[in-house]
Each structure stands twice: as structure tokens, then as C-alpha cells.
């Protein structure tokens, strides 16, 4: 609780004719003893030393900076006191328009609604700070040892990189020797500049770097039995031929790679029907053993034949499932949690996902086989999508230069054995017509199925189960926010790299391994400091439970997107702060409101809501709308809109929240009883292409909206007064219209029946 607050007004960033002196006076009048210092400074950035002096002299425990958005220059204002901001620039003056919708031309004296808006924000800022305190440290003793699961190309790279950063490594490999899939590869696509030539894999050197390293302990023929604890302080039980080994572990790199797609999925393309049809991985092995005798080889990269056959099957299955009556609930399953069963998520889709690896692989092997025979071999590459990522374009150029390599885009419509050769039927080709190709060997793509789709790789000892959550939504790939946070999984402290994350070429696997090591190290060191990894990097708050009132309803433990909360037999939550990413989804879920963060809690936001002056006369003074905006995407979008002079209704009051998942229904009741006419929840997109930084937050919020609607109905308030809207960070041009549209709908609804009560 900040009790001696310094309020600073940044005159350089407050315009629009606002009476700043009046803002300061009103604040002091209202908050009296809490405000120890109140100053108007010409330019805040130049007043840093003055503020530091005030903190030292007056013993301030909170600083409120009124001016620009908190997203600007905040690295200047790291004080030995809590810092809060009041955004009077982007989301107040710059985005202000007159109540009648006309543009506001900055005047000498701000109009009353603008002054009121600013005054509300200042009061809300003081309330926020006043209800905020410094969290106790959640720092834990950590083990600086990284567990690498998988001893293939990625795992070996990761182990070596981690050790060279000074961390101990435990490497667990399922097979009897290291190397993984690369053992069977004759050569690699380029691993570095000039990115043009095939290169030796030098796998043995990579293995030697690991096996000869004192910091790396290797377990062969080994698998995970259990992973218990939290980042920084995990305990791994590893099943080895010599019994179970127990290792203290800090963080985990998941590099378990892939398994080849079931050959049945390639049957429509002739695999298994003729010995003249092989997969790319098999062909690589054949080339390694010098057993390729074919003179004409078709590399068929177009997998439509297989995809269509199985897509039809999948659709038929789905239809059958939809028609079948709902399976009756298991009789005794209601109280008991169902036993965990790993679903097999392998499907024909993995063939499509593997297109990059097969494109690059076919180019490489087609070139190799031509090179070996001095172009005595004709190698045809028949593709639908030749996908060569990034700089490997240079490799593609070089590979196609080979005389014997012939490529065309083609729809391969049939592959069959005729006499002593294979006939590949091609349609819609670049050669201008449909044709048959007679070949001695057909090479099909290899489907790379992530190991996570087939087996439980890590064996978490977590309340939410031993596996990664929601794998079925992502065809077995461990969920990760690919754009913003690659390597992340839904389990903090476990970072996926290599083909288990995405089918990748060897160079990309190396990059992945290095990236994942950096994340694993960051996570360890963050746990040691008691701060979050991402996206709230360095946040030192964490959920605190008031167990006295907890009803053991388990909502928080079930809804936490990261499985941070375990529980005991009774269902009392057991927090693991190092697993937590500080989104607040748990306290959004809690009906008893027993969960809070020291600097972000139910009471705090409720108090802020209550600071807004809601006029009784709806007709004359307009409605009041509360906007709870996600701080990750929606709040920056609003800032950007303001900077670009996009304006919205002056009746809105915006409160940033950590995630829509952290929105507790009580805030909506608070707003309604205060007299707000509508509440708008502005958050990230959810669904398949979700943009939520906490993966599930906006989705969970949307689910809770149903309960909220019921509550509102019971209270006699139209549920339409609360709406959740989705916005992307770059949609600053759309967000003002979204707000104004909502305000118009609320205005049409009329005043909140609780207004003035």
C-alpha cells in the first residue's frame, strides 16, 4: 500500500488546454494525506533527479507520473518506489473529440468533458497506486543444470551450446547411440555461408563435442519417467537401463525430434505396392549404401493423392461421429478425474507440414544422385509447392543447376507400376501439357511426425496431467506462440526446439537449439531472481492466495494456461511461482476472490472503477463506458490510435488489465453498481489463430461472458451492456470505430437502471 505518494504532472506532454493546476489541486483535496508531494514539472524527463531527491527526502513509497503513455520513456523512471502512470496524452487529449462527435480544436481552456476525463484518470491513478504494494521476493535457489531431451542434431547442438555458456547438461537419448535421424543422411543442406553447397554433416564431430565434455552427462537408452517441481528447481526421474536416475534440473529443452509418418498414409501414392517406391528418408539411406541402381528417378513432392484420400476418410469419420449419439457419461467418472490416455495425433496433415524439409531434401538428394553418376541419372522433381525457406534460396539455385535435375510444378494424378518400370502421371505441368513419366524409382516425401503427437515426452508431474495441454488443437505440436515467442511451450521452463516444434532443415535446427538454450538460461536466471520470463519479463509479482476463504473449487488450477498451480488431495491450490507467467487468469477465475498480486488485485481495479464520476443525467451528460483493455495488444493499439489523432467518445474510461483472462466478474458488477452504462472488454483474438500472449486468456474470458450475462440478467441489467471485442495490435485504425460503435449501441439502450442508486 503506497501511503506517501508523489504526483508529478509532465507539462511538456499535457496539452489540450487542460487546467493542470486544477487537476493537482483536486487530487490533493481528495486524497489528502496520501499525497505528500504534488508538482507540475516543465518536462518530466528532466526532473528525474528532482523526483529521486523527493523520494529520499520525503520517504515517498509511490510515484504517480501524469503525462505520456506508460509505454514511452519508462526506462527513465525506475525509482526506489512504486511507479504508476496516468495516460493524459494518447488516451486523453490526443484521442478526445467533442461529445457531439465534432473534432476538438485545442483551445485555451479545455471543455468540461475533457477536464473531467483527465480528472477521472488522475483519481484512478492515485487509487491504483494506493492499492498497490511491493511484492515479497519469489526468488528461489536454482540448479544451473539443463536437461536436454533427445540426442539428435538439435539436442546435440543444444547440449553443447548450453555447456559452453557454463551450464551443466543432462542429455537423455532414447536410442542406443547419439545422432538421431542424421545418422542416415548422406549429406546436409547448407549449414552456413555461402548457403549454396551441400555439406558433410560431420555428425561424429558434433557427437564428440558432447561426449568428450565434462559438463555434459549423457544417458543412452533412457526416457523420462517424471518431471517434478518448477523451473529452476525441477527434479527429473530418468529411466535408464541401470534403473531410475534422479537429477536436479533447472530447465528443459525438448528436442525429441520426429518419427516417420506411418507408410499407410503414402499407400495412395504407391508406397508398399511396389519395391520401386520409397520415401525420401529411405532413399537417403540407399544412397549412403550405394544401392541406387535406377537411371530415371521421380521425386514426387506433390502429395495431393495421399492428402485427398485421407482427407475424405477424415471427413467421413467426422460425419459419422457427429451423427452418432453422444456417448453416455462414464458412470463413476463424474467425481473421479478420468485417467490420462495419450491420444495418437499422427495424421496425413503431417505430410503437408513437412513440405519444407522434403523440398530441400529432394533438391539435395536429386542433385547428389546426379552428381554421383556424372549426370547419368535423370532426376525429376514434381512439386506442388517447392518451399525453400529464406537464404536456402541460394542452395535451391545451385541444386537446380545440375544438368540431370529436371523440375516442374505438376499435379501428380497417378503412380503405378507398368512392366519393369513405374509410370507417373502428371497434369497441369509447366511443360504445357499433361504427360506420363517412365521411371525406375519413385521417391515420396517423408512425413515428419513430432514425437509429441505420438507419446508423452516429458511426463510432467503436474496437476493438469503428464503431457502438454491442447496438443490435439495443433496436430500434436507443442503449442507455442510462433511469432512472438518461439520455443515457448505451455509449460514454463520447457522449451521445444528442432523438428518436434516444426519440421526444419538442419541449419534451422541449429538456430532453434541455440534459441532454446537462451530461453532455458533466461528462465533459470529469472527463477533465481523471482521474476517472470515473458511476456511480463522481469515482473516480480506473483499470485498470492488467501486460503482462509478458498472453497477448493479448483477453477484456478484448471484454468491456468501454464499449469502453474498444483493442488493437494482436498483441492487446495499449491502455487509454483516459477511456472507462473503472471497473467492473472487464476484470479479472474476465482469466484471467492482469494487470489491477488501485490501490485494487481481485485480491490485495486474495483477502486479505480469507483473513482470515476458518473453523472446522473444520462441525456445531458452522456453515458459512461468502462473499457478493460488488454495491456499487450489492445492498450498499445489505443496508444497508436491516439498518436495518429484518431479519436473516440469522451465518455469512455480505459483501465489496462494484464490479460482479459484476469478480468473478474466482480469488476463488471462494480461498474454496473457504480452506474456505468456499459463495459467493453477489449482483448486479443482467440481461436485457432489466437494472438493472446497467454494463449487462453481471451478465450477463457469469452467463455466467462456467458456466466456474466446470466448474472446481469438476474440483476435486471441487459447483458448487451457487456461486450468482448477482439483487436490486433496493428488495428489502431479500426479500434476507434469499435469503441464508438459500442458507445452508440449503449446510448441506444438507454441508461443503466442502477444509475444514481
Amino acid at each position: 500500500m503506497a501511503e506517501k505518494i508523489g504526483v508529478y504532472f509532465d507539462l511538456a506532454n499535457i496539452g489540450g488546454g487542460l487546467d493542470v493546476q486544477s487537476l493537482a489541486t483536486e487530487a490533493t483535496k481528495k486524497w489528502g494525506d496520501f499525497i505528500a508531494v504534488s508538482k507540475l514539472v516543465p518536462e518530466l524527463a528532466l526532473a528525474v533527479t528532482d523526483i529521486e531527491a523527493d523520494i529520499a527526502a520525503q520517504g515517498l513509497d509511490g510515484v504517480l507520473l501524469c503525462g505520456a503513455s506508460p509505454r514511452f520513456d519508462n526506462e527513465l523512471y525506475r525509482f526506489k518506489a512504486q511507479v504508476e502512470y496516468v495516460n493524459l496524452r494518447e488516451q486523453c487529449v490526443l484521442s478526445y473529440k467533442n461529445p457531439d462527435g465534432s473534432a476538438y480544436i485545442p483551445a485555451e481552456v479545455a471543455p468540461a468533458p475533457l477536464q473531467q476525463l483527465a480528472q477521472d484518470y488522475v483519481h484512478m491513478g492515485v487509487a491504483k497506486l494506493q492499492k498497490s504494494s511491493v511484492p515479497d521476493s519469489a526468488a528461489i535457489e536454482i540448479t544451473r543444470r539443463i536437461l536436454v531431451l533427445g540426442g539428435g542434431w538439435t539436442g546435440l547442438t543444444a547440449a553443447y551450446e548450453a555447456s559452453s555458456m557454463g551450464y551443466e547438461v543432462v542429455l537423455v537419448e532414447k536410442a542406443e547411440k547419439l545422432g538421431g535421424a542424421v545418422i542416415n543422411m548422406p549429406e546436409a543442406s547448407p549449414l552456413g555461408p555461402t548457403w549454396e553447397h551441400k555439406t558433410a554433416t560431420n555428425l561424429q564431430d558434433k557427437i564428440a563435442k558432447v561426449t568428450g565434455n565434462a559438463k555434459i552427462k549423457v544417458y543412452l537408452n533412457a526416457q523420462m519417467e517424471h518431471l517434478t517441481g518448477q523451473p529452476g528447481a525441477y527434479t527429473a526421474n530418468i529411466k535408464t537401463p541401470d534403473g531410475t536416475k534422479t537429477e536436479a534440473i533447472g530447465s528443459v529443452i525438448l528436442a525429441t525430434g520426429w518419427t516417420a509418418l506411418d507408410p499407410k498414409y503414402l499407400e495412395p501414392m504407391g508406397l508398399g505396392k511396389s519395391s520401386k517406391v520409397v520415401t525420401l528418408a529411405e532413399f537417403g539411406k540407399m544412397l549412403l549404401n550405394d544401392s541406387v541402381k535406377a537411371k530415371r528417378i521421380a521425386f514426387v513432392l506433390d502429395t495431393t493423392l495421399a492428402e485427398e484420400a485421407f482427407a475424405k476418410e477424415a471427413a467421413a469419420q467426422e460425419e459419422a461421429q457427429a451423427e452418432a449419439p453422444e456417448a453416455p457419461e462414464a458412470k463413476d467418472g463424474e467425481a473421479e478425474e478420468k485417467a490420462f490416455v495419450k491420444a495418437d495425433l499422427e495424421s496425413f496433415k503431417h505430410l503437408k507440414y513437412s513440405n519444407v524439409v522434403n523440398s530441400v531434401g529432394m533438391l539435395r538428394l536429386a542433385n547428389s544422385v546426379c552428381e554421383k553418376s556424372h549426370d547419368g541419372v535423370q532426376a525429376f522433381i514434381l512439386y506442388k509447392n517447392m518451399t525453400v525457406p529464406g537464404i536456402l534460396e541460394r542452395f535451391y539455385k545451385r541444386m537446380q543447376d545440375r544438368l540431370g535435375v529436371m523440375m516442374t510444378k505438376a499435379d501428380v494424378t497417378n503412380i503405378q507400376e507398368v512392366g519393369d518400370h513405374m509410370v507417373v502421371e502428371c497434369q497441369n505441368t509447366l511443360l504445357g501439357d499433361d504427360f506420363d513419366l517412365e521411371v525406375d524409382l519413385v521417391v515420396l516425401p517423408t512425413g515428419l511426425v513430432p514425437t509429441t503427437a505420438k507419446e508423452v515426452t516429458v511426463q510432467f508431474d503436474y496437476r493438469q496431467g503428464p503431457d502438454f495441454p491442447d496438443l490435439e488443437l495443433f496436430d500434436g505440436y507443442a503449442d507455442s506462440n510462433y511469432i512472438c515467442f518461439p520455443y515457448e511451450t505451455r509449460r514454463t521452463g520447457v522449451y521445444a526446439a528442432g523438428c518436434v516444434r516444426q519440421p526444419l532443415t538442419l541449419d534451422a535446427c541449429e538456430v532453434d537449439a541455440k534459441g532454446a538454450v537462451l530461453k532455458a538460461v533466461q528462465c533459470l536466471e529469472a527463477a533465481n531472481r523471482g521474476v517472470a520470463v515473458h511476456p511480463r519479463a522481469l515482473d516480480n509479482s506473483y499470485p498470492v492466495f488467501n486460503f482462509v476463504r478458498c472453497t477448493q473449487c479448483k477453477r484456478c488450477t484448471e484454468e491456468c494456461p501454464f499449469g502453474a498451480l498444483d493442488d493437494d488431495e482436498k483441492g487446495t491450490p499449491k502455487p509454483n511461482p516459477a511456472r507462473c507467467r503472471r497473467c492473472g487468469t487464476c484470479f479472474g477465475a476465482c469466484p471467492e476472490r482469494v487470489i491477488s498480486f501485490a501490485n494487481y488485485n481485485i480491490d485495486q481495479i474495483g477502486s479505480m472503477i469507483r473513482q470515476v464520476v458518473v453523472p446522473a443525467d444520462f441525456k445531458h451528460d452522456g453515458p459512461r463506458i468502462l473499457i478493460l483493455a488488454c495491456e499487450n495488444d489492445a492498450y498499445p493499439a489505443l496508444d497508436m490510435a491516439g498518436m495518429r489523432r484518431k479519436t473516440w467518445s469522451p465518455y469512455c474510461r480505459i483501465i489496462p488489465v494484464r490479460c482479459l483472462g484476469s478480468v473478474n466478474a466482480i469488476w463488471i458488477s462494480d461498474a454496473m453498481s457504480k452506474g456505468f452504462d456499459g463495459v467493453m472488454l477489449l482483448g486479443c483474438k482467440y481461436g485457432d489463430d489466437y494472438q493472446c500472449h497467454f494463449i487462453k486468456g481471451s478465450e477463457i474470458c469469452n467463455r466467462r461472458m456467458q456466466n456474466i450475462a446470466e448474472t446481469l440478467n438476474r440483476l435486471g441489467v441487459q447483458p448487451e451492456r457487456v461486450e468482448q471485442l477482439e483487436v490486433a495490435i496493428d488495428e489502431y485504425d479500426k479500434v476507434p470505430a469499435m469503441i464508438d460503435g459500442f458507445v452508440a449501441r449503449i446510448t441506444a439502450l438507454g441508461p443503466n437502471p442502477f444509475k444514481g442508486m
Partner: protein
Amino acid sequence: MAQCTLKPDLEFSRKLIAAGGEDLKKCYQCATCAVACPLAPANAPYPRKEMVWASWGLGDRLKSDVDIWLCHNCGNCSDLCPRGANPADVMSAARNVVYQDLLEPKQIGTWMSKFSGLPFLFGIPALLWLIVWWIRTSFTNGEWFPTRADGSIVFGDIFYGDYTIDPIFMITFFGALFIICRGAYKLWQSFKPEGTVAIVGEQKCWLCHLWDVLVEEVILASHFDECQDGPKTGKGTPSRRVGHTILVWAFCILAFVTAVVAFGHWGGKIFPAIEITTPLRPLHLIKLLANFGAILLVIGLGILTVRRVLENKTTHKSSYYDWYLLGIIWAIALTGILAQCFRLAEAAGCAFFIYYLHLVFVWMLFAYLPWSKLGHFVYRTVALLYVRMYGRKS
């Protein structure tokens, strides 16, 4: 079972690479070239499709492809190719390979395709004219470089027209004409698709089309302007119209002069009134015209040669075929002019030797014409005639 079975032949690709298409494998079929080409028709444009056929070694398709003859080799496609595959060079190489295979005897085609064949090509006429020279010395009392009493030199004293030059060149000329006509016929047949073709719309007789082709394409060389007006490539492409037109006119004038002299000479034996005796007076109208033609030839050659030398070698490579033809014409022009100079200067040894070389080169030009790049005069005309008869302008 579909349609046709492809039989790619890497030997054919190798031949193309050897004949100047060394970058053909670099093509990745983006079709920038087909868009860049100012001459390509909207329907099935070139040279994109030729590039993939070349890469796949589909010789049959390229040999029966009319489009390779329609290209004027302006190089816009090569300038704009994002991969440096130089489609213009590949088209030119395809033409060269077709010359090589179109005609009998094929051995000459093989010799024509590379520098190492040059000694054989040169050797044949060198030996032929040497034998003629040797035989004729028996008429000049064993004198290899005879001069008249007044010191003047008459080439006819050795290379007597009626019995040596005329019959040999007539046989050579009509022989080459026969071979090239057979080639043109074969080409025409190969252009035709299998089965019968129904042509819809207004039609003209083939002679009218031929007239159009000769006027628009040969005499005016209007397509060069279209090439010039093609898309902006950001690279200077010097006009080839001037040089090419001058060269064509020079050839026409020289052919006319030769025909007049031949006609006057042989016709004069029947109708003495039209007889023309050589050597002609320096101010004789035909002589003036001949010298004018020779000067034009040198100017045209000079322009074309300078252009090839100055060309950007990364996108426009001149192949051996290009240099062979230019070289032969240069040799003819220079030896012709030098021979006349030495004759007037009465330097017998030099004059006769140069004149001998002149005959060798002229024979090479005519005899090997069906296999040389100059054959494009006939083959391109055939191709243009073919497309016009099937409704295409170019």
C-alpha cells in the same frame, strides 16, 4: 493412362549448353521473359516454355517449335531474367542446334558447331581452289602470278570465269539452295501439328503472306523496333536495326550486281547486245554499285561487330555461330577489297593470293550457308510465313 510419354534426353541439353545456352539450368520458370518479350504472342508466349523444354532435354519439341525462329534476339528477356538464365542465348543456341541437325550431310553441321571444325571447313575450298589454280598454271606457262604485258593483273587469267568460277559457284549455289530448300521443307513439316488444322477467318494466299513477310520483316526489319520499344530493362540496348538493315541492303546490292554481271556475261554469248565484259571500267554504273555495296557491307559489319564487342557479356553472350558468320563476312569483305587494291597496285603475288582467299571464303559462305547462322534468312522467313498463314502476326 494419360497422353504422351516424355522422353527427356540430356544429350540434347548438353548440345544446347555447348551451343551457347550454358545458363539454361538456372531458369526457375517465373515467366518474366515471356512477359518481357515484345514479340511473343499473348497465347503460349515464348521463351518461358522453351526454357523448360531445354532444361528437360526435349529436343523434339524445340526442333518443331516455330517460336525459336521468331525471336529477334533483342535480349530484353536476358536483361530482365531474375536468375541470369539468359533465355535469349538459349533461344539462339536452340536455333544453332537445329541448323546442325536439320540438314544432310550432318558432318558439316558438326564441324559448324565448334571452332575445332573450322580447319575442315576451310580446308575443303582451300584445296578445291588450289587444284584449280594449279591446273590453270599450265595455261600460263607455269606462272602462278601472271601479269599482262602492260603490268596489269587480270584475275581471270588464273581463275577464268567461264570454266572455273562460274561452274563451281553455280553448282555450289544451286546445291546449297537445294539443301536449304529441303531444310526449309523439313522445318515446315515439323511445325505442322499432327492431323489436320482448320483455319477460321480471313485468309490470304501464301504468296501474299510471303510478300508481306519480305517487305515488313526483311526489307524494313520492323521487328527490331518492337524489340527496341520493349520493356525498360534499365540497360542500354543499342539498336540493331541500322546495322542489320545496312547489311541486308549490302547483300541485296551485291547479289544484284553479281546477277547482272552473270546475266550479261552468259546472256551476252547469245545476245551480244547485252554483253558485259569484266573487269569493268572503274566508273561503270555496275562497278560503282558494286563498290557502294561493298562499302555498305563494311559499315554494316562494323556496326554489328562493335555492338557485339560492347555487349554486356553476362546477359548477352555471342556464340561461336555468331562470330563464325561475322568472321566469314568480314573475311570476304576484306579480301575482296584488298584483292582489288592489290590488283590496281599491280602487286601480283599479293593480289592473286588474296583473291584466292577471297574465293575460299565466298565458297564457304555459300556452301555452308544452310548450316550457318545466315540460314536464318530462309528459316525465319519460313517460320514467319507459317505463323502468318495460321493467323499470327509474329
